[in-house]
């Protein structure tokens, strides 16, 4: 029987989620608990099956050949421990033998010494080359990172500039007009119409306009070659109103804005103003 704690650790271990002391402790427990070992093996097998839940993808056709070629190369590499030695020097008996042996030993020592010095020099040279290559690699990486950083900053600056330019262009194309009152009883009424000709829409704000009577409504007009209604609106008791508007008919070149006072007949717009109470310059 495996307790819940070990079941949990087995699951985490099978997914390689255990680390450090926790992993070491569990592996010690695993070494002496055969049931736990079987559970881990089963959980590992189940975890591996998750590979089948990846979106299917066919490995490149050439990959099999590449792998087999790598394996063949490793297999055909010359074995390092198979050096064969054949004795070609006839044995000589007698007093000369020790001298020949000593001379051979001396020559061998000199030869191996020279090889050692040469190899050591080559190794040092190789190490220097590797160090230089490492420095060059780090330098190249640094340069790439720097260029990427600069590139990203330039891109960000460009995006900001473009946004600013777009906004400036949009603002430049807006038509902003102030409307003044033509009413004697409220000469301080003031309104501003902001018109975006590219989108055929605008915003109208008015202050200090007398609240409309119950049987009356105000109506906003765009003056093209003729007045085009932008809809009726009501004014709050404090004289304030703000509306987003669109003309009820197509306009080409809006030159002025006007506000009229209309009878509250239930219609959303009219074809011509009745009594103009505000007009832009």
């Amino acid at each position, binding site marked *: 029987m495996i307790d*819940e704690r070990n*079941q*949990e650790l087995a*699951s*985490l271990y*099978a*997914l*390689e*989620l255990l*680390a450090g002391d926790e992993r070491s402790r569990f592996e010690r427990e695993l070494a002496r608990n055969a049931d736990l*070992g*079987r559970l*881990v*093996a*089963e*959980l*590992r*097998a*189940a*975890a*591996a*099956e*998750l*590979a*089948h*839940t*990846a*979106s*299917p*993808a*066919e*490995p*490149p056709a050439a*990959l*099999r050949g*590449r*792998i*087999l070629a*790598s*394996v*063949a190369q*490793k*297999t055909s590499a010359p074995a390092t421990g198979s050096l064969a030695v054949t004795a070609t020097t006839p044995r000589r008996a007698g007093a000369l033998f020790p001298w020949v042996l000593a001379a051979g030993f001396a020559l061998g020592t000199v030869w191996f010494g020279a090889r050692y010095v040469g190899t050591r020099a080559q190794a040092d040279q190789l190490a220097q080359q590797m160090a230089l290559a490492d420095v060059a690699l780090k330098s190249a990486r640094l340069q790439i990172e720097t260029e990427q950083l600069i590139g990203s900053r330039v891109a960000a600056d460009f995006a900001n500039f473009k946004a600013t330019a777009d906004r400036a262009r949009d603002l430049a194309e807006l038509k902003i007009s102030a409307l003044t009152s033509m009413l004697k009883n409220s000469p301080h009424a003031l309104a501003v119409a902001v018109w975006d000709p590219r989108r055929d829409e605008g915003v109208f704000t008015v202050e200090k306009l007398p609240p409309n009577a119950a049987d009356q409504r105000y109506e906003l007009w765009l003056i093209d070659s003729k007045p085009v209604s932008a809809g009726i609106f009501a004014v709050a008791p404090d004289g304030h109103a703000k509306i987003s508007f669109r003309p009820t008919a197509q306009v080409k070149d809006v030159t002025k804005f006007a506000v009229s006072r209309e009878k509250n007949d239930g219609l959303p717009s009219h074809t011509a103003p009745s009594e103009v109470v505000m007009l832009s310059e």
Partner: protein
Amino acid sequence: MTMAPNQRSADDPGLGDAVLLQRISAGDRDAFGELYDRFSRPLYATALHILRDAAEAEDVIHDAFVAVWEKAAAFDAQRGSAFAWIVALVRNRAIDRVRSRSTHDRLLAASAPADLGYGADGTSGDVVTEVAAREDARAVRTAFASLPADQQEALRLVFFGGLTQEEIARSLNEPLGTVKARIRRAMHKLRDLLTSRP
């Protein structure tokens, strides 16, 4: 190489895999080619899913199979199936590459189920078209899809995201204990479902 004492029947593909590894350890290239043909598709799909880069996935599969050739004798069937062993070789290499890219934070941010190629219901968007592809894959997908969505998500973050327990807890905004218990339940249910398949 050690064979598991509870090794399944002779027609069990798991047993065949272990035998292939035994032959590979003796230098049998035909066995190696056969093993590649058996496993390369899910392994490549896994590497690609983790790395999101075909060239890197190819390199990982190459290196992992060369490692199989070199280390086949070290395979211990007591510790798990041959497939599990090779999946671990691939997965570890792929996750190491992801981490060495220094884009782990980006991976964390991109760990939402939808970004891992799954729909909000936790099932693969390609499941329908893949049903006929492989019987094994279908069984696994069916089993996986039967897990609750939160358990599927946790397993995906571990297996394909290579996240640690703590990273998963942060990513899901859940206590660590909850995440551990969720993984335990998911793994045990998945094992039960897969071992009970015909």
